Structure formats: structure tokens, C-alpha cells
């Protein structure tokens, strides 16, 4: 590996700018709950003169840190960027719903007008989609009061009902924020790696340049430090999967740290990490040779110990991927929650003890949040490395050729 020496001044400049960007994004995150509350005029297009929507919101609700954090860490049906003057600004995502009555409904989430309109009798309330009854007046009215509309009867997402053909049941297949994050990660990976592959095929014997020389040491690192020593001599079969999983997890983790784009939490979603762990589980057990299964069901130990070891080994087969899933999910989600909690401290102090206390705390809070963001960059890489390393170790155990004692 070559050593690149950057000019000291430009390195410092880059670090300062990135720190400022990393932390400032979190500040805009906390304006959320405030502006959401003043949202009786938040509807942008067709609603004029809406001063008080059923009186269910105060002008200044106290800052609710738990709610703000949960809003940022959980999934959503659009990409909420910020609130401008009480109006939420967000990137709409496609809502895809299938119901037994009406079949497939596909429309953009902007049709819901942030919870102020119904579309095809569907409404969205606090992130959940509900279907109003047939004669519900709110289904066609211009103004929607979610609580009142729901009190007149509704159906919720019901997978069992749809498969059984129940009337009124529907399922939600929308492309949510997390899924959009996955698509974004995949697009980034495609762009980077297809250009690298093209560069290698076009100039096979030349020195690498550009993005190729950035990625090559990392790819070699995965091959030489993770795949070869952990899998053993048959590593080439598993190398594509290991590289993919490493870069996907790393890119998705880093995506979650970028501020101002809406806060993606891809790997912090347990469904996503569960699928990744499922891939490892399937590949391990499909490529297990007879020594692998022998170690689980007939290990070389005294027969009376079988009654203890076999259940443990069988549980281990399932527990190891579950642990992979939970480790990644917990690390990433905990990191996001900690950063958001530090920034919330500022607003909690400001609400409790006055703006002066808020300013004072903001210095300390900012310092900790900067430190946590830097730590999270390390964690992003580290968790990808640990997931890939453990997957490689499991593959190695599955294809191990056994030299019998």
C-alpha cells in the first residue's frame, strides 16, 4: 500500500468542515417536534384558512425527546427533510397498498398531505396507514381529522386477512424510507464497483487510478485479512458474498451518519439485519460438508455427553446468525440514539431552565456529539468488518477438511 501524504492545512480544513457538517445536521433534527405541533397550517396545496384543526395541538408543546428520537430511528413513508415555517418539507415516496376490495393502489405519499387528506379511503396517522370504512365522510372531504375519522371505524394492515380474502383487509407494500435507503446504497455500490470493474477490464496491466486505487486496498484487505485466513483454501467461492456484505453494511452505516438528507437508518432496522444474517445462515448450511454436520450431530466426545452437546450445537446453528443480526442492529441504533440524545439535551435544558442554560449546555453537548459522530464512523467500519469476519469464520467451519486425530 502506498502512503499518501496530504498537505497538513488541507487535512485540517477537511476535518473541520466534516465535523461541522456532521453535527449541524443533528441540530435541524430537533426542530421537528416543535414545528410538527404548529402544523395546522402545514398543508401546502389545497387547504386555505385552516387555523385550528380540531384544537388537538397547542401552539407550543414541550419538547418530547423520546418522541423525536423514535421518529428519527424508525421507518417512515416519506423522507422528511426539515420543517420550514411550520410546513414539513419532505421527499415523497411511493405508497403501494393492496386490498382485497380494491386491488392494488399505487400513489406518492404526497397524496396524504402529511396526514391531512385521505386517498382511496386510506389515511396515514403517526406513520401507520389505516383504511376508513366505506361511508366515512372524511374519505372524500378536504379536511381530515385523523382521530375523528378513525373513531368511525377503520381497518389496519392485515396479512392474514388478505390471504384469506377477508373484505376490507389490506397489506402495505410501500417503498419506505429504509427501503429507499437500501436502494440508494445499492445504487452507490453499483456506480463505484462497476466503474472499478470497467477500469480493470480496460487496462488490466496498468497501475490503478482514481476510485480504483481507493477501493483496491480495501478489497485486498477483505480478501487477505478476512477471507483467506478465516475460510481457508476454498475462499474464492465465498469471496463475492463477503465483499458484497462488507461494502453494503459499511455504505449503509455511513449513509445513516449523513445529516440533512432525511436520516436513513438502514442497518438500524432489525428486518434488514435479519435478512443479512439469513443470507449467512443459508450459505453456511448449504455449503456444509459432512464434517460440519458430524461436528454438530456426532462429535468426537464420550457418548453420555451427547445429550448435552447436541442441543447446544443445534441451538448454536441458529443462535450464531441471530447474534450477528442483533449485534449490528444494536450497535447502529444505539449510536444514532446516543447522538440524538446528546442534541436533545440542549433543548431539554432550554425548556427547563431557560435559553441561557440551553446555550451553555450546547457547548458540552456539541463536543460530545462530535466525539460520538467520529466514534460512529469507526463503528460503521468495525461492524461491517466484524459481520464479514464472523460470516467468513462460519463458512470456514462449514467447509473445513478434517485431519482426523
Amino acid at each position, binding site marked *: 500500500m502506498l502512503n499518501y501524504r496530504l498537505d497538513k492545512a488541507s487535512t485540517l480544513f477537511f476535518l473541520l468542515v466534516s465535523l461541522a457538517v456532521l453535527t449541524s445536521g443533528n441540530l435541524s433534527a430537533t426542530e421537528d417536534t416543535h414545528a410538527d405541533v404548529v402544523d395546522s397550517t402545514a398543508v401546502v396545496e389545497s387547504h386555505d384558512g385552516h387555523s385550528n384543526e380540531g384544537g388537538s395541538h397547542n401552539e407550543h408543546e414541550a419538547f418530547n425527546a*423520546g418522541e423525536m428520537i*423514535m421518529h428519527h430511528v424508525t421507518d417512515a413513508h416519506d423522507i422528511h427533510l426539515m420543517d420550514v415555517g411550520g410546513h414539513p418539507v419532505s421527499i415523497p415516496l411511493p405508497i403501494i397498498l393492496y386490498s382485497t376490495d380494491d386491488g392494488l393502489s399505487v400513489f406518492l405519499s404526497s397524496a396524504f398531505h402529511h396526514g391531512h387528506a385521505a386517498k382511496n379511503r386510506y389515511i396515514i396517522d403517526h406513520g401507520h396507514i389505516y383504511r376508513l370504512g366505506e361511508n366515512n365522510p372524511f374519505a372524500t372531504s378536504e379536511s381530515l381529522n385523523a382521530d375523528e375519522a378513525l373513531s368511525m371505524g377503520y381497518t389496519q394492515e392485515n396479512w392474514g386477512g388478505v390471504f384469506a380474502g377477508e373484505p376490507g383487509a389490506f397489506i402495505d407494500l410501500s417503498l419506505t424510507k429504509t427501503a429507499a435507503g437500501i436502494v440508494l446504497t445499492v445504487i452507490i455500490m453499483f456506480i463505484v464497483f462497476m466503474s472499478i470493474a470497467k477500469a480493470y477490464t480496460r487496462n488490466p496491466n496498468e497501475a490503478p487510478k482514481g476510485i480504483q486505487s481507493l477501493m483496491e486496498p480495501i478489497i485486498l484487505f477483505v480478501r487477505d485479512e478476512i477471507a483467506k485466513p478465516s475460510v481457508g483454501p476454498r475462499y474464492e467461492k465465498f469471496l463475492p458474498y463477503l465483499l458484497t456484505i462488507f461494502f453494503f453494511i459499511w455504505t449503509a452505516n455511513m449513509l445513516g451518519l449523513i445529516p440533512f438528507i432525511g436520516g436513513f437508518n438502514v442497518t438500524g432496522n432489525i428486518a434488514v439485519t435479519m435478512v443479512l444474517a439469513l443470507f449467512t445462515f443459508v450459505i453456511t448450511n448449504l455449503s456444509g460438508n459432512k464434517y460440519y454436520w458430524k461436528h454438530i450431530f456426532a462429535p468426537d466426545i464420550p457418548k453420555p455427553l451427547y445429550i448435552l452437546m447436541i442441543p447446544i450445537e443445534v441451538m448454536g446453528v441458529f443462535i450464531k446468525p441471530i*447474534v450477528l443480526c*442483533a*449485534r449490528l*442492529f*444494536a*450497535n447502529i*441504533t*444505539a449510536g444514532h*440514539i446516543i447522538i440524538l440524545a446528546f442534541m436533545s439535551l440542549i433543548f431539554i435544558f432550554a425548556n427547563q431552565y431557560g435559553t441561557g442554560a440551553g446555550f451553555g449546555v450546547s457547548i458540552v453537548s456539541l463536543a460530545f456529539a462530535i466525539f460520538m459522530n467520529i466514534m460512529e464512523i469507526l463503528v460503521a467500519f*468495525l*461492524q461491517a*468488518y*466484524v459481520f464479514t*469476519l464472523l460470516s467468513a469464520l462460519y463458512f470456514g467451519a462449514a467447509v473445513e477438511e478434517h485431519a482426523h486425530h
Partner: protein
Amino acid sequence: MEILTILLDLANAYMGAGIGAGVAAIGAGIGIGKIGGSALESMARQPEAIGDIRANMIVAAALVEGAAFFGIIVCLLIALK
């Protein structure tokens, strides 16, 4: 019966979640402290192996922290439900 009613009180679930999170942090602290301690000792004994030791220390720390995070997530789920 007194104890049962006390134990089933929801407020104590929150307290349990708080204590659990604290104990998980203690566990992580002890584990990573031991890893860091022995890593530093071996680096002092063999300065030429510092790079290898550092890499393995970080990996082991990540694994131990994973276990601590289990506890944290369970406590968080209790506190938020």
C-alpha cells in the same frame, strides 16, 4: 402477596430497565477493560507486534460490546413499551 404486587407494578419495570442498562454497561466496561489491559501489557512486552495486537483488540472489543448491546436494547424496549 405483597412482594408479588410490588413486582407486578409497572413502575418497577422502568426501574428494572434502568438498572439492567446500568449493569450491561458495567459488564461491557469490565470485559473491554480486561481486553485493553492485556493488550497493552502484551504491546509493552513486544513492541514489534503492536499493529497485530491493536487489530485483534478492536475485534474482541466489538464482540464484547455486542453482548452488552443486547442488554441495552432489551432495556430500551422495556422502557419504551
